[in-house]
């Protein structure tokens, strides 16, 4: 084998209490798309941060193109030809595209010249962008383009991409893959982080799998089945949700022609949204991030009031009622943002439990909080949903993302809702925990609750939903049965095609 582009030898990085990377070795070849696979907390992010110079390794060495490579900061990594596209975009909402690109470059040219280059490069790679647009107004897919273009303008040898497809429609994923293949053909190697196995099998030449900070294997994904890859990642096989027989009851939640203006400068208005969910049914709502998911959840949960007559819960109009009244009537919700929206970061799990469950679970006595009952309730959630926490008194912010997610979803499910609305229930949760959350949602539906799951994970929606609808710029398509849906149809729905009657029939 020829000399690799980048060779990692014995990379180790420890944080207090946890070893993020333990003696990791692998090579990234020239002209190669190399996948880095692993569950949340497997150490992928720390590893790429070391390559990009954001984190210094405790031990180990890196060799780039035959020369020692010890970047002490990102600008040095960029000078050596290493670029990175972040998972949580490192963009500035209030600045325009050209300014954002300039911030990521060492020696940006004059503004006019830069705008011109952004235009030509973005078109050359099939990712058209207008340099003068304010980034806050772009869709998630367009924002990712900004990051990619920012890297491409510096002719990188190695491009690191952290979960690039998690926010894209299937069509946008295709475009991205074409771009990446073109880059490889032109001599750029790509380190591609993902946990979507099928994607890796279509796109990547080589895959390295991390588990608990250690390298498990390097293999050729095309010759390895998705099942094998998953088992290497998790280290054990995990339960897939059981198939089930749906028995549908009365309509529990009905939304008719709901329109709401955008809540802020960067929000999305809801436009004429109609949906209905029956007892025992799971309605999956897909769509690219920022197309009205948060706004829809806020309208359903009661955080924002709606025009009278637009939202009906179990036959009663609740449009003008706030979250408390809707909770009392049986409509519970779990928003996307765990810290700060679903849970108060500095309050303990018990206190967070009281915040939503006080009335339904009788945690109040004569207007005072019954702490014993609150603790019992919290501990019941912790044990039922396998939340790994030192105690019920631990502050919410001290839990890892996955564990907190299990807690906030479990907290709502344990209150036996009639209708449950959740946004991104398994976002950032490892595969085993995600499977447990999905199973709990299905069980709840089997017991006669109506459920709305808003998610950007299409596999998840296909797995648990009975019907599927998509949000696009605040419009909701008609819901269609999941059985028989093809990825093309889903893509069209997410892209906003309005002629869905054909698929519906």
């Amino acid at each position: 084998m020829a000399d690799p582009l980048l060779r990692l030898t014995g990379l180790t990085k420890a944080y207090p209490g946890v070893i993020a990377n333990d003696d990791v070795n692998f090579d990234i070849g020239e002209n190669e798309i190399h996948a880095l696979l692993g569950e949340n907390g497997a150490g992928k992010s720390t590893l790429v941060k070391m390559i990009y110079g954001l984190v210094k390794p405790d031990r180990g060495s890196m060799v780039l193109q035959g020369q020692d490579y010890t970047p002490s900061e990102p600008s040095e990594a960029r000078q050596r030809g290493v670029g990175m596209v972040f998972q949580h975009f490192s963009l500035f909402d209030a600045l325009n595209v050209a300014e954002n690109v300039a911030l990521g470059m060492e020696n940006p040219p004059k503004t006019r010249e830069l705008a011109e280059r952004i235009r030509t490069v973005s078109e050359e790679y099939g990712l058209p962008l207008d340099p003068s647009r304010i980034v806050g107004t772009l869709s998630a897919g367009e924002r990712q383009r900004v990051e990619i273009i920012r890297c491409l303008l510096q002719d990188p040898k190695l491009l690191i991409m952290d979960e690039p497809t998690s926010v894209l429609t299937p069509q946008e994923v295709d475009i991205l893959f074409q771009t990446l293949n073109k880059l490889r053909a032109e001599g750029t190697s790509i380190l591609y982080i993902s946990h979507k196995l099928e994607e890796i099998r279509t796109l990547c030449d080589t895959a390295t799998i991390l588990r608990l900070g250690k390298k498990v294997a390097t293999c050729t994904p095309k010759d390895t089945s998705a099942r094998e890859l998953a088992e290497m990642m998790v280290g054990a096989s995990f339960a897939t949700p059981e198939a089930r027989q749906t028995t549908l009851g009365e309509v529990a939640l009905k939304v008719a022609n709901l329109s709401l203006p955008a809540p802020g400068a960067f929000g999305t208005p809801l436009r004429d949204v109609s949906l209905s969910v029956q007892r025992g049914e799971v309605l999956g709502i897909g769509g690219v991030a920022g197309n009205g998911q948060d706004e829809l959840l806020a309208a359903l949960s009661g955080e924002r009031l709606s025009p009278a007559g637009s939202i009906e819960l179990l036959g009663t109009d609740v449009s003008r009622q706030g979250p408390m009244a809707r909770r009392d009537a049986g409509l519970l919700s779990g928003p996307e943002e765990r810290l700060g929206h679903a849970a108060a970061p500095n309050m303990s799990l018990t206190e967070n439990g009281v915040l939503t469950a006080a009335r339904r679970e009788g945690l109040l006595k004569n207007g005072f909080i019954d702490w014993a009952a609150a603790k019992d309730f919290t501990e019941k959630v912790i044990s039922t949903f396998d939340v790994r926490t030192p105690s019920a008194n631990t502050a919410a912010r001290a839990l890892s993302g996955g564990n907190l997610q299990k807690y906030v979803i479990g907290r709502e499910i344990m209150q036996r809702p009639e209708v449950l609305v959740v946004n991104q229930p398994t976002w950032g949760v490892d595969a085993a925990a995600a499977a447990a959350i999905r199973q709990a949602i299905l069980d709840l539906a089997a017991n006669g609750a109506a459920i709305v799951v808003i998610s950007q994970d299409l596999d998840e929606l296909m797995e648990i939903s009975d019907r599927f609808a998509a949000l696009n710029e605040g419009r909701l398509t008609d819901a269609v049965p999941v059985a028989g849906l093809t990825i093309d149809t889903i893509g069209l729905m997410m892209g906003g095609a309005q002629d869905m009657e054909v698929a519906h029939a």
Partner: protein
Amino acid sequence: MDLSSINPVLLVASIMVSATPILLAAIGEMVVERAGVLNLGVEGMMITGAVVGFAVAINTGNPALGFAAAALASAVLSLSFGVLTQLLLSNQVATGLGLTLVGLGLSSLIGKPYEGMKSPTLPKLDMGFLSDLPVVGRMLFSHDLMVYLSLALVIVVWAVLKYTRIGLILRAVGENHDAAHALGYKVVRIRMMAIFFGGACAGLGGAYLSLVRVPQWTEGMTAGAGWIALAIVVFASWRAGRVAIGAYLFGGVTVLQLNLQAAGAAVPVALLSASPYLMTILVLVFISARGAHGAPASLGRPFHASA
């Protein structure tokens, strides 16, 4: 009431003098806030600048040295705020309020021996034929150097923020410090420099009060000018041009209402005294209502570069 007792030429001239200290403090604070730091200690830095500038000018007989010393003293004082909030991650609001209290106390201590003295003041500039123009010459072209420096500073700040790379980086840090850090910019260092600049500007504003506008030292002489500067930054939606409008509006109404009081206007004195505050806020709210320009997204949020 006798409106003829108000001389429009003198009125405009004194508006420019009255607006300058607030303009200086506000433009400095705007830069600080654009970098994502909320420094509520403007009042304390201003009055420190006022007393230090006054003391140095008296002792050296040179008002220019007074201004320089005032800028330096307030900037050093602001660095204590920077160390506490940026390095030790203390709460910005509480630390800023503390800075104001420290400044007020420190200034009355330093200023005790100087009460009742009169300082040398800045000479009026002679701008040749411009100053000789009828009416306009008296109004606009016969002030001291600091008036013009403060206006030039507004233009420089505006141009730097809009057109230069350092301005872009400063805005980026204030907008999203995590992203700026991920791109490899030194968030804390940039914020420290902004805080230092803001302190120096507040010091100049304070010294202008004690060396030109009054020119005397009395305890607590800033009388809320620092707070007004803070309010102007917010209502001006963090834009340099609007900060200038706000400062001149406030200065203008202040001078006008004093003139009206002197002319014996049939309006309650309390209402006249409150009018600069009301007018400034009303007008700036009206301006910023059109076009949504929010606060820098990281304003007041603590930054810690955890991995």
